[in-house]
């Protein structure tokens, strides 16, 4: 059952932040481009504004990509908020290194230190470790599994493919495992909890959402995220002042950095597993794949690496460099990697529970009543023109029909039905106009009598 636009909140909770994708109302023209491109049909234009339905939004940022008015946007913390903490730590995701035209990752890290971070930690290290763990897991289990590292994919599955949640590999994402480790290490060093601020330099709103609505873990080890676009210039300006670093001295997790693009995770699996793995990126293609998988129509694949953004994390909307360039640069960096970093353990990837499916989109909690509503739904679909023009504010006629049945829209929201209603009304009116007042109807009456 849809709860629309006003989300019911438990008593005593004033406001719960649910999503990272936001709307600048003053910029929204009500064009419905985002409505039609939303993979979960979470957006409706109401009163000329594209409103998001909380329970369906997975923060994939497709609406941000498609909005020509830049009305759909997203917010994260700013770089300056680092100074709120005495001991700020930067978590650097693999894709971040795709933003600097192949500059040595060690130099990028130095630049982040210069900006004021006390620690700069590579999520790529946790990614390498997770790859080892995934190999072990796949060897010890016979099932078919889906990578759970992209939080948007996990949310998509929970909402639209609840039957597939059991196929999500039961591990935390590298960002979460890394976050937990650096947090624990810092506290063990004597840093006080209130002094510690763990910042993820995020490529996407989807990861920002995990801070207040975690996927898999109970509470997020990350305090705040900062969009890549908000650190980019600062890093660039400092980079100039950072001398190049002697690579021989450093252990850069080049192979883990490969995770920043689609296919990078699979490349770290054992060769025989790579043969039975598949990598798919871009939310609409991920949906097409899951449709096939759901009807048991994908054979010979044991592991799926799925990313919501096309090309993987380098395709995240917060990145500055275009995904084609970033991907090419990241590939070149990855090719420098000979082997994974050794003695790189101490992460806890095991989930505290399992991924739970969500039941969304029911017409009614009672089967019999739901059947009645289904019949109503078919009636409405028969009445609607089936043009899927979205002028009503819903993405297609089917969805408008659902909204009518659940009582949040009406037939006259459809401009074609409205036009027909007006036409009928005009006909009735002109018919009425031809009706003469009784005093003038004499001849006709005479005719009848005669």
């Amino acid at each position: 059952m849809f709860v629309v636009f006003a989300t019911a909140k438990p008593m005593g909770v004033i406001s719960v932040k649910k999503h990272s994708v936001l709307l600048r109302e003053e910029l929204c023209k009500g064009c419905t481009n985002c409505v039609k491109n939303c993979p979960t049909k979470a957006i409706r234009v109401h009163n000329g504004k594209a409103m998001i339905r909380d329970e369906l939004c997975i923060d994939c940022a497709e609406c941000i990509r498609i909005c020509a008015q830049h009305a759909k946007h997203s917010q994260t913390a700013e770089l300056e908020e680092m100074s709120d903490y005495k001991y700020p730590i930067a978590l650097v995701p693999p894709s971040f290194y795709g933003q600097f035209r192949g500059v040595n990752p060690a130099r990028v890290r130095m630049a982040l230190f210069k900006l004021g971070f006390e620690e700069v930690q590579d999520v790529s290290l946790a990614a390498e470790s997770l790859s080892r763990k995934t190999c072990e897991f796949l060897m010890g289990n016979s099932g078919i599994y889906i990578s759970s590292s992209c939080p948007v994919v996990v949310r998509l599955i929970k909402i639209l493919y609840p039957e597939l949640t059991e196929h999500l590999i039961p591990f935390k994402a590298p960002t979460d495992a890394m976050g937990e480790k650096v947090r624990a290490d810092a506290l063990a060093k004597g840093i006080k909890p209130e002094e510690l601020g763990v910042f993820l330099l995020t490529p996407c709103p989807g990861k920002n959402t995990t801070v207040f609505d975690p996927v898999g873990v109970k509470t997020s080890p990350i305090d705040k995220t900062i969009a890549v676009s908000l650190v980019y210039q600062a890093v660039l300006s400092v980079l100039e002042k950072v001398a190049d670093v002697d690579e021989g001295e450093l252990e850069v997790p080049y192979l883990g950095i490969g995770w920043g693009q689609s296919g990078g995770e699979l490349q770290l699996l054992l060769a025989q597993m790579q043969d039975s793995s598949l990598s798919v990126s871009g939310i609409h293609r991920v949906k097409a794949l899951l449709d096939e998988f759901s009807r048991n129509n994908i054979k010979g694949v044991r592991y799926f690496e799925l990313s919501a953004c096309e090309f993987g994390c380098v395709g995240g909307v917060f990145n500055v460099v275009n995904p084609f360039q970033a991907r090419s640069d990241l590939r070149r960096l990855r090719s420098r990697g000979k082997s994974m970093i050794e003695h790189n353990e101490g992460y806890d990837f095991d989930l505290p529970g399992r991924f739970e499916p969500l039941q969304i989109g029911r017409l009614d909690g009672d089967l019999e009543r739901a059947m009645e509503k289904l019949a109503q739904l078919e009636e409405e679909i028969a009445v609607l023109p089936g043009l899927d023009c979205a002028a009503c504010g819903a993405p297609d006629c089917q969805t408008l029909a659902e909204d009518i049945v659940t009582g949040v829209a009406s037939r006259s929201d459809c401009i074609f039905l409205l036009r027909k209603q007006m036409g009928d009304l005009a006909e009735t009116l002109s018919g009425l106009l031809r009706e003469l007042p009784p005093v003038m109807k004499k001849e006709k009456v005479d005719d009848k009598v005669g």
Partner: protein
Amino acid sequence: MQEQTLLQSKIEQGDFTRGGEVSSSLKDVLRKLGIKSETSRRVTIVTYELEMNIIIHSLGGEIEVLISSEQIKVVATDRGPGIPDVEKAFQPGFSTADDFVRGMGFGAGMGLNNIKHYSDQLTVETGQGKKSKFTAIICL
């Protein structure tokens, strides 16, 4: 609740381009009815296999899905040509699909097994030169 038709659809022989449409719309309907996701997946897989069976092996037919408080029933009927040896048809790997169909990735000889595996009850009425009727039941 008495048994009611949930979905009914004609299926043409060799119509691969529409293959999977019935099971896709069915999955959507089951979600609207609030059917448990595991049950929904079983019904979807069974329907998909039956749908593809009609497309690949029969002269065309129809799928009807019915629901009651206790169960979901998927009934697939076709216009022939019938299965001469049902037992053999259920052997894993047994298939009569031609190279064209196999080239498309179908006809690996697991379809009937899948249907049986995901159903709670399956009845097959068929014979050489006869129409076939598959009735798969999945309990709610």
